């Protein structure tokens, strides 16, 4: 154990001391530059393996315009260049990726090198260098044999990976290539399946040592739109067969190839909901278990600037509606951000990069996942930097033109080079993120003393055999970095594998290290890693402070297992497949704990249909639309057969639906004709209640959708059940028109009839303005009158209310009103003799959120009702705290008679608008007058932009808590906030089921959510996959299961179907989903 303060965490070793002078020098020429080869600045990779078998990891660097170089590790961080002696001299240039494989089975690592042949010398093809072993001086000698093996591909290659795709014992190859198709013109997604011989990806199957191109039969995409820059291999679904993640730059989707186990792949991301969104400009990626749950996760890096002013001068995503148009051409949602897809099992992933703290790392290339401090959790090193930032908006709009105007169309020659010189260069510091224990990362200052550089391929390798990973980085126009790890914390072991003859490196083997006080560490062995790079060095497994590992489980590529026990720290093991105990035959990693719920398909015949939102057309400055909020679902018996029936609200241009349950548990459409009269607006909520006290259940519906200001589309409806069916009671609500979010019924005045609360979250077309709320008194016949001003004046202008609850919160036998909403705190109105009074000083002052739902339940069984509230979550750029809140400014900033909505957030302590310059200046052209250049805009404060007077005189609302939380009632009218755990914050929570899932007498939670209609600058919130949380009996919650639900889920309600308990989950623009409890047959979710 070292002392962290005493010395640096990482030491950059000088080229003069290491002998590594390699530098990937590139220079523009008239014939070759960023204007005629789009990946001119993508850099080179690095590979490591013990090529001469002397026990030390050697290094191979790839170069674009120079000679690749091989360095022998002489020990003690001394290296010797041996390229020429090893027979590796190439004169044809433009190497991209390198990978390592022992293709001839002689036990010595071979090199497979990718080339961009069309820009290299005539006849250039990918190279396979067979390592024939060391000569008498210990120098490994190589022989080029690509053609012999059928691997002399000639085209736009990026990187290759060898793995045993069909588990026949030998290694097959995926060749990642990249398109040079004009990147701006995306066309149809279907282009990905029209083969392109130069740039389409390839799959080669090994037939007794010869590789045959079986691309067509393999099911992979190989079209001209694949800008393949990243490839990783891993068994994502734990079926023993390796799967693939392919990162594509620009508009093309990333591909997630599941191995079908029959020799083919299926890209499950092309039409599926498995990943949700991905990175947009995908560079390198990694498959690695970040949270030690034995399920490999996926990291893909992009170019989102971490620096605020770089962010504001960079090209950002299309406006919402243009983006939707692009998606309709056959693409999945992608956003400019790094992504971390946490693997939840069963091909369910939740993307959490923003929340995990790794979404932004500048123009990034390699994600290197390794445990640098031996705490058993893998950290993340990301390389970045670009000599020519082609997305700089000042360059795009202003600089480029003046330089190029007169020369356009002609061959610019030398002028072209001068023009390229004007491209802003972004020399940035690589970033090292420390894993703080599974899901989240920080950036410790000591770990981040990296000089600015243009860094590309990189890897983590223990160069001095001290059981911690050092770093090697290939740079453009600067010597490669050798970064010594001096952290000296924790313990680790190192494992070398020797596999079967056809796969001597045991590619595809899995190792799981178990040690006390640590979660198990899984490593699946695949050399191709870290962007254009390959790591075939020993496998490093951290074990924290344990001095002895309890056991090491090995699953060899053939599925056979091996178990070693009691391994002391700092051990280097060499394990041989031929020696392993054959008794320990096939072993399957068991990763899924017993689930509580299962996702069940029940076809109700109902599908919600909604229209694409137009709200960003009207106001591009809003963070999310106030449309597409439905449907909610009401459950109750409507035909007196004691079976639960279903009532769904309709989408815009769709009537509401009523479904009767049959005695067999099927659902039949029983929607009354009268529903068809109301399809103009969205049905936002409905109730099944007996409104007129005749013993028959009636239906109340409310509408919203932010389109109408008044009139029938916004008039609540009461459908009374009569002997002849449902009839609208026309005068039920008089002249009441409300863009409603919720309706709730209760007999608050104990007069025997049900009174109503109708919530509104929006004054139509005025995002952020305060709408009015309604308390309605039932006259007993289903006639409702507005008594808000007399009985609940505090309710009237309470805020943008999304949910209301009737509940006796203070246990005085009177029903109180609880309310949540956006830009407002959790609010309680106490039912007193005189009416409802807004409660003050109850510990909820700093709970201004973007709340969507509220539940009241006693979580700790102390007799005092607690609160559970669903919020926006932590998985976007937006963070809110008491001192650094989100602010909403409503003001006619440019005096044109219409109100501008400017929303700000704090980024690293600076308040800044979340909208882009383009969005803001289109609404407020005066901003262009003051800040035409993006650079000027990027450093302007809120006051600079909008003026003190505008900000001071605006209507301001704040939000200081975005996390879904519980509020524990301490019994004396005060509440204590406890944010729900990480998994609850990955997306919006729109509804919560409160129920005792594990029968321990304490209520547990099922959270559903997601929101698709949000600003493209914020991405898309799709990472709620049905979050099941168990209560520790004190109101603290832990993840029990991710249920695998998908889509924009709006509501969850318990329902009995055919005598069994279920939950029905409604989804916008989609069919409802059903959840069924497992294990306990006597389970009743209504309790």
């Amino acid at each position: 154990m070292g002392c962290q303060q005493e010395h640096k965490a990482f030491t950059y070793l000088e080229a003069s001391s290491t002998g590594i002078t390699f530098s990937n020098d590139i220079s523009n020429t008239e014939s070759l530059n960023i204007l005629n080869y789009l990946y001119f600045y993508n850099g080179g990779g690095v590979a490591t393996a013990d090529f001469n078998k002397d026990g030390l990891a050697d290094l191979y660097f790839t170069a674009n315009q120079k000679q690749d170089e091989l360095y022998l590790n002489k020990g003690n961080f001394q290296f010797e260049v041996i390229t020429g002696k090893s027979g590796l001299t190439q004169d044809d240039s433009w190497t991209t990726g390198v990978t390592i494989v022992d293709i001839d089975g002689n036990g010595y690592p071979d090199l497979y090198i990718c080339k961009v042949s069309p820009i290299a010398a005539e006849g250039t093809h990918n190279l396979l260098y067979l390592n024939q072993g060391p000569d008498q001086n210990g120098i490994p000698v190589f022989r080029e044999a690509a053609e012999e093996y059928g691997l002399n591909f000639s085209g736009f290659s990026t990187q290759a990976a060898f793995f045993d795709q069909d588990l026949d014992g030998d290694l097959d190859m995926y060749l990642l290539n990249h398109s040079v198709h004009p990147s701006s013109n995306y066309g149809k997604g279907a282009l990905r399946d029209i083969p392109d011989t130069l740039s389409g990806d390839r799959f080669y199957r090994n037939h007794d040592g010869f590789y045959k191109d079986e691309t067509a039969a393999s099911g992979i995409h190989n079209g001209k739109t694949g800008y393949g820059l990243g490839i990783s291999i891993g068994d994502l679904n734990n079926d023993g067969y390796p799967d693939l993640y392919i990162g594509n730059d620009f508009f093309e989707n990333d591909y997630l190839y599941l191995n079908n186990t029959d020799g083919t792949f299926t890209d499950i991301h092309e039409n599926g909901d498995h990943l949700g969104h991905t990175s947009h400009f995908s560079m390198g990626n990694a498959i690695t278990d970040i949270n030690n749950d034995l399920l490999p996760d996926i990291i893909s890096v992009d170019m989102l600037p971490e620096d605020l002013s770089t962010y504001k001068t960079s090209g950002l995503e299309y406006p919402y509606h243009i983006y939707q148009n692009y998606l309709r051409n056959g693409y999945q949602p992608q956003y400019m951000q790094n992504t971390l897809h946490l693997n939840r099992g069963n091909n369910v992933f939740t993307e959490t990069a923003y929340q995990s703290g790794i979404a932004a790392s500048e123009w990034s290339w390699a994600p290197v996942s390794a445990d640098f401090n031996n705490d058993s959790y893998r950290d993340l090193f990301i390389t970045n930097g670009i000599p020519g930032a082609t997305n700089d908006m000042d360059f795009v709009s202003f600089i480029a033109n003046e330089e190029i105007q007169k020369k356009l169309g002609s061959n610019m020659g030398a002028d072209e080079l001068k023009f390229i010189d004007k491209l802003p260069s972004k020399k940035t510091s690589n970033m090292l993120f420390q894993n703080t224990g599974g899901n989240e990362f920080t950036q410790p200052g000591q770990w981040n003393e990296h000089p600015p550089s243009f860094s590309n391929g990189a890897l983590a390798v223990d160069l001095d055999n001290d059981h911690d990973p050092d770093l090697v980085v290939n740079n453009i126009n600067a010597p490669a970095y050798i970064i010594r790890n001096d952290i000296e914390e924790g313990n680790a072991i190192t494992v070398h594998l020797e596999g079967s003859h056809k796969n001597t490196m045991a590619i595809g083997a899995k190792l799981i290290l178990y040690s006390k006080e640590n979660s198990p560490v899984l490593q699946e062995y695949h050399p191709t890693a870290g962007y254009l790079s390959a790591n075939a060095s020993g496998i490093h497994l951290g074990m924290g402070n344990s001095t002895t590992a309890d056991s090491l489980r090995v699953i060899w590529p053939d599925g056979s297992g091996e178990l070693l026990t009691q391994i002391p720290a700092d051990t280097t093991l060499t394990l041989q497949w031929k020696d392993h105990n054959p008794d320990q035959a096939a072993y399957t990693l068991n990763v899924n704990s017993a689930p509580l719920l299962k996702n069940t398909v029940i076809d109700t015949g109902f599908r919600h249909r909604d229209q694409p939102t137009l709200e960003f057309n009207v106001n591009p400055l809003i963070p999310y639309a106030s449309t597409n909020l439905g449907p909610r679902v009401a459950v109750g018996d409507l035909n007196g057969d004691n079976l639960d029936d279903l009532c769904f609200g309709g989408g815009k241009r769709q009537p509401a639906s009523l479904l009767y349950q049959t005695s067999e548990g099927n659902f039949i459409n029983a929607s009354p004709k009268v529903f068809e009269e109301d399809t103009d607006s969205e049905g936002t909520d409905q109730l099944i209640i007996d409104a007129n006290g005749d013993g028959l259940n009636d239906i109340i519906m409310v509408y919203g959708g932010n389109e109408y200001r008044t009139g029938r589309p916004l008039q609540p409806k009461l459908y009374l059940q009569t002997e002849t069916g449902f009839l609208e009671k026309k005068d039920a609500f008089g002249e009441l028109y409300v863009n409603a979010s919720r309706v709730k019924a209760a007999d608050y005045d104990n007069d025997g009839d049900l009174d109503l609360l109708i919530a509104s979250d929006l004054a139509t077309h005025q995002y952020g303005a305060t709408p009015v709320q309604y308390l309605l008194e039932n006259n007993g016949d289903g006639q409702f009158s507005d008594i808000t001003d007399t009985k609940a004046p505090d309710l009237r202008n309470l805020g943008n209310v999304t949910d209301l609850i009737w509940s006796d919160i203070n246990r005085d036998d009177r029903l109180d009103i609880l309310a949540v909403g956006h830009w407002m705190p959790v609010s309680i109105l106490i039912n007193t003799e005189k009416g409802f009074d807004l409660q003050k000083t109850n510990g909820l002052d700093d709970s201004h959120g973007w709340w969507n739902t509220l539940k009241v339940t006693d979580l700790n069984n102390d007799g005092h009702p607690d609160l559970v509230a669903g919020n926006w979550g932590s998985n976007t750029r937006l963070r809110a705290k008491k001192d650094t809140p989100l602010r909403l400014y409503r003001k006619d900033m440019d005096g044109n008679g219409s109100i501008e909505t400017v929303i700000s957030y704090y980024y690293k302590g600076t308040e800044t608008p979340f909208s882009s310059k383009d969005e803001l200046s289109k609404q407020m052209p005066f901003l262009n007058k003051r800040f035409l250049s993006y650079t000027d805009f990027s450093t302007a404060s809120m006051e600079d932009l909008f003026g003190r007077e505008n900000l001071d005189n605006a209507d301001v609302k704040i939000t200081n808590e975005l996390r879904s939380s519980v509020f524990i009632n301490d019994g004396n009218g005060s509440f204590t906030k406890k944010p729900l755990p990480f998994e609850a914050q990955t997306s919006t929570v729109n509804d919560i089921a409160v129920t005792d899932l594990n029968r321990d007498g304490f209520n547990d939670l099922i959270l559903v959510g997601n929101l698709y209609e949000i600003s493209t600058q914020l991405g898309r919130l799709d990472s709620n996959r049905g979050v099941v949380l168990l209560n520790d009996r004190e109101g603290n919650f832990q993840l029990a299961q991710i249920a695998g639900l998908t889509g924009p889920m709006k509501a969850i309600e318990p329902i009995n179907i055919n005598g069994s308990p279920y939950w029905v989950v409604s989804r916008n623009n989609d069919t409802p989903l059903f959840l069924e409890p497992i294990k306990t047959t006597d389970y009743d979710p209504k309790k």
Partner: protein
Amino acid sequence: MKRTIYTIIAIAGVLLSSCSSDQTPITISEEHLHKSVEKVTEIMIHDIFSPPVASRIYVYPNITAYEIIARNTGAYPSLYGQIEHLPEIPASEDPEVNASLAALIAHMELSKSLIFSEERMQTFQDSLYGVWQEQNEREFEASKEYADQVVTLAKQWLGNDNYKETRTMPKFTVNSDDPSRWQPTPPAYMDGIEPHWMKIRPMVLNSADQFKPAPPPAFSMEEGSDFHKELMEVYEVSNRITDDNSEEVAIAQFWDCNPYVSVTRGHLMFATKKITPGAHWIGICKIASKKSGFDFATTLHAYTKTSIAIFDGFISCWDEKYRSNLIRPETLINQHIDENWKPILQTPPFPEYTSGHSVVSGAAATVLTSIFGDDFAFDDDTELPYGLPVRSFSSFNSAADEAAISRMYGGIHYRAAIEVGVKQGRSLGHFVVDQLVMKNKQEELANNQ
């Protein structure tokens, strides 16, 4: 002509050094006005204004300067009362005021308020102001003060034209299953620009739809339908002229006049910027004025009348564009005929029908013909700074016809948008000519030549 200015500077310098107390009258020539207009054009290119917005930036300074001349010299009749909403510009009461100088100052000051990069305009103004101040401080200050008063009035006037209000109106809706509806086009997939331009207050038109054209041929992808025939014509003409590299390609490029062309080369995306179609016709107006030897006031009147026609032309055209919301040939050809087809010109980001070039060229040519005559031959070097050659025309109308058809050669318009558009523009141009009394003797002379 630069030499003229330098000469003035030189003379001013000599006078200043020899007898600084004795100030000489300031002479403003038409060349000053040309320079000011050119400067505004140059800044507009830098700042990137869409064609309709550019037409607005031309018209207000021109009218304002024109009114100063009209009110103070009587060389031309005032437009007060002719343009309904134009406020009455008072004549100066200060005899020190030099009307041409005040007109020029007002032109520059008002232009500055309309473009973004004010400092670029300011630098240009400062260089002139410095000279004038030294040459004759009293005359300059008096003229400047008067110009500033007029500019204040003009700003109030233009502030009520609904421009500000249209900034926050809804964007064009692209989410639609209507196969005929306009969609954003490659490569930048920009929003439809100025979907509310028909709500801008026109100068002479009674309403935006006064010259509402006949609707385009009914949308149909059925072979043999009028619409489909026109679509195929665009595709086939474009392919033929590309293969032959014929004159038509040069014509298309000459009239491109796209203020924001998104170019992708390798990994690089950048904008190349040219003048707008309105600016091109302003340029032709300059060429004709110079060729005719027009003086300051006559030149100003020509610019003013031309820019009014262009301004109203865009309102009329945009009214139709966002009525018919017609899809561009590029979208349909890529969808149905040839996925890899690209038009010779980049498709501009707004609906197809009618063609803006056709309407504006028709309108501008009609007005120019009314000033300079029908058989006025000229060499058009407007596009020289953008790397394009000089083209020669025998008349404004023949130039307008070429500008219009160039849009089909460019692969961005169907024939109907061109033929109907030119007609729409010409009718509008005649209306402007008939409505506005802006003649003086010199102009009548020119017409009789």
